[in-house]
């Protein structure tokens, strides 16, 4: 067999082909080198500019929380359906799309036709659809029809604290109340993350997504107590309704630090759907409305004289039996009053004697005391729309003006100013700047900022105590608020009954009836101001506003766990807990010190278990009702001092 030898011509052709391939390969290699290495950066940049895109992360608006951490306002996303009408028209899909979408979105076909008739690139078909509707639209997979998510603000407590919270609009921008005050913190920032979009428009986050958490708005933790807010709103609504009044306003402050515990106004609004409520008078009246405070101002007029040492609480005054001319004017009392002490002047709310006391003090002292308590200037509360009020300037304050100013007419103040001033009396003489914000936290619960308290001493502790005693007399026999009562608690306060100014004169039938007070008198936990505007069929503050105050305050004190002055303390055990009779009551006595040993609760009723826990120096968590059927830790085990034992109760049998 002879070896095959390629012909010369064939070898030339083979070498030629090899050379061609070699040149081609080298050319390709060169080009690849050029594309990837030499000009790689430039082409990579060009490519990224074409396909890369910042992936926009819309911010989640922060929540507004009550003092216990419950949501008063929160945001969640809802689906909305939109379409590219131009694309649908170009493909001749308008009619088919309408026929399929109308039943799914529960819309009239002509409505959809109208929306799509403009042939725009972007047309909302239906916003904020239900999850079922969104799912159905997605399943239809119609070209040119898209489902997009939009954030929506919810106020899960409905109208609770509506005027105080305000609301955020469709674009998640705060419009009123706390939503407006803290808008920049709540809103968050729109984040743009580097990423790619593929041919289908899907996001490809090639650089990770760790920044996403940082774009959410901050949460605002307020001092609002949900329960007290609710009770206050219900009582105020009832008060306004019962007296066919025009409006009402109420503020509850913690006198120890100026925190706004509750703030209510009637008419109110539901921030989920504010609609035209603001046009109908729904606003945060506690800060936006100026009123003539009436007799609630007497406390401060008398304080000026007491501080100067020119008047004593037991000084005697003659109140002219209800009628006293001052210059061209005649001052009246609601009822004729004769000789009374300074304390009784306040208790009986005599305009005439308060004016006499103010004359003895002089207008400088009276005005200076009112200014010191924060009147005629904004408190600086963290709520929008606050007004300052007005006190007549000294050069323009004649004798009649001084007299009327002393009993709260001819000056203006906001309900919040009055409440803050009384809080200063209640806490021993320190004025605290009122505020609703406690702290701001990020979405990991870390505190970002806290309220920076602002306080100033306005009167001495001794003078504050004297005023507290005088205000207590208002609620006692002979005082204007004698018929108000808080079972188990002593309290102090002042009635206010102001005629409203109308067309330059005081109206004879339009009044603002108010009551402001604090409780318990010995250690005030709450200052509450209530005003009913233009009540019908009566106008005395104690009768109109008093019941609202009383109803709210008693509920609030119980809710806060404030012990009554006739507090009942469980006794030392005379017998082991198990031997206690079923109907054992609470009797006076001292609790035994705890040795940390858990008693046996099994078989006891709730009350007996509470009693046994108290004797053992334990706190118990009660679950269910009836007879104790389980406990953790078990009997005989030990717990830390002040430890908690969980006890489960079930109905007998």
């Amino acid at each position, binding site marked *: 067999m002879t070896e095959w030898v390629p012909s010369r011509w064939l070898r030339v052709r083979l070498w030629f082909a090899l050379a061609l391939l070699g040149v081609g390969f080298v050319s390709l290699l060169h080009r*690849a080198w050029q594309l990837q290495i030499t000009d790689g950066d430039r082409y990579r940049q060009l490519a990224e500019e074409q396909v890369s895109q910042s*992936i926009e992360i819309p911010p*989640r608006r922060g929540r507004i929380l009550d003092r216990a951490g419950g949501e008063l306002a929160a*945001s*969640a996303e809802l689906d909305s359906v939109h379409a590219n009408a131009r694309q649908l028209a170009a493909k001749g899909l308008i009619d088919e799309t309408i026929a399929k979408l109308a039943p799914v979105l529960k819309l009239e076909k002509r409505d959809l036709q109208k929306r799509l008739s403009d042939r725009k690139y972007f047309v909302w078909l239906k916003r904020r659809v239900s999850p079922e509707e969104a799912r159905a639209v997605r399943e239809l997979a119609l070209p040119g029809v898209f489902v997009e998510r939009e954030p929506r603000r919810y106020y899960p407590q409905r109208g609770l604290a509506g005027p105080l919270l305000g609301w955020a609009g469709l674009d998640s921008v705060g419009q009123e109340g706390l939503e407006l005050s803290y808008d920049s913190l709540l809103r968050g920032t729109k984040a743009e993350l580097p990423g790619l979009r593929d041919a289908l428009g*899907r996001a490809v986050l090639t650089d*990770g997504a760790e920044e996403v958490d940082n774009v959410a708005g901050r949460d605002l933790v307020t001092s609002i107590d949900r329960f007290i807010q609710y009770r206050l709103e219900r009582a105020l609504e009832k008060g306004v309704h019962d007296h066919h009044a025009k409006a009402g306003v109420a503020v509850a402050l913690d006198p120890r630090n100026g925190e706004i515990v509750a703030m209510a106004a009637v008419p109110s609004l539901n921030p989920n759907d504010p609609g035209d409520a603001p046009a109908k008078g729904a606003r945060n009246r506690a800060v936006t409305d100026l009123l003539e405070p009436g007799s609630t101002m007497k406390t401060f007029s008398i304080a000026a004289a007491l501080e100067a040492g020119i008047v004593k609480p037991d000084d005697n005054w003659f109140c002219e039996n209800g009628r006293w001319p001052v210059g061209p004017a005649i001052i009246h009392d609601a009822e004729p009053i004769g000789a009374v002490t300074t304390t009784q002047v306040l208790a009986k709310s005599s305009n005439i004697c308060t004016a006499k006391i103010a004359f003895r003090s002089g207008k400088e002292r009276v005005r200076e005391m009112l200014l010191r308590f924060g009147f005629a200037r904004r408190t600086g509360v963290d709520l929008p729309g606050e007004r300052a009020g007005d006190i007549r300037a000294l050069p323009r304050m004649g004798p009649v003006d001084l007299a009327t100013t002393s009993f709260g007419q001819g000056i203006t103040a906001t309900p919040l100013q009055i409440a803050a001033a009384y809080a200063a009396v209640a806490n021993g003489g320190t004025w605290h700047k009122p505020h609703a914000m406690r702290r701001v936290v990020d979405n990991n619960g870390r505190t970002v900022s806290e309220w920076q308290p602002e306080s100033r001493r306005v009167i001495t502790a001794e003078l504050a105590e004297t005023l507290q005693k005088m205000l207590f007399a208002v609620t006692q026999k002979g005082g204007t608020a004698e018929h108000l009562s808080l079972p188990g608690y002593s309290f102090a306060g002042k009635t206010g009954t102001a005629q409203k100014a109308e067309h330059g004169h005081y109206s004879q039938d339009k009044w603002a009836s108010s009551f402001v007070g604090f409780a318990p008198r010995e250690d005030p936990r709450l200052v509450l101001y209530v005003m009913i505007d233009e009540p019908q069929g009566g106008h005395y503050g104690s009768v109109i506003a008093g019941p609202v105050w009383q109803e709210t305050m008693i509920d609030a004190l119980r809710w806060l766990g404030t012990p009554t002055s006739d507090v*009942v303390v469980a006794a030392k055990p005379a017998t082991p807990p198990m031997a206690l009779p079923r109907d054992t009551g*609470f009797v006076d006595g001292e609790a035994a010190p705890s040795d940390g040993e858990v008693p046996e609760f099994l078989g006891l009723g709730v009350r007996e278990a509470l009693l046994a826990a108290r004797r053992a120096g334990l706190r118990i968590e009660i679950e269910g009702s009836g007879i104790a059927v389980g406990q953790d830790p078990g009997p005989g085990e030990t717990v830390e001092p002040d430890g908690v034992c969980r006890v489960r109760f079930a109905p007998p049998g």
Partner: protein
Amino acid sequence: VSRKLLAVALSMATAGALIHVWVRLQIIAVGYDISRETKWRHDLVELNQRLAIELRARQDPAVIERLARTELKMVPPDPRAIRVLK
């Protein structure tokens, strides 16, 4: 020898190119995963938020009071019947 070297060099260049492409594809795939997981996480946070709102709405004091009064026939206790333990 030179042919062998050329073949090895070409093989290595080809393998390097393939590895480069594979890495790029992996980056894209992981990018999709991150994107999907991010969306999933976002959806879960949204769901959590909606449930929290729903829960809070059901804890509305007005709703609870209405249920207590109408369905459970409860009434507020007499103020004198309440004692706060110190």
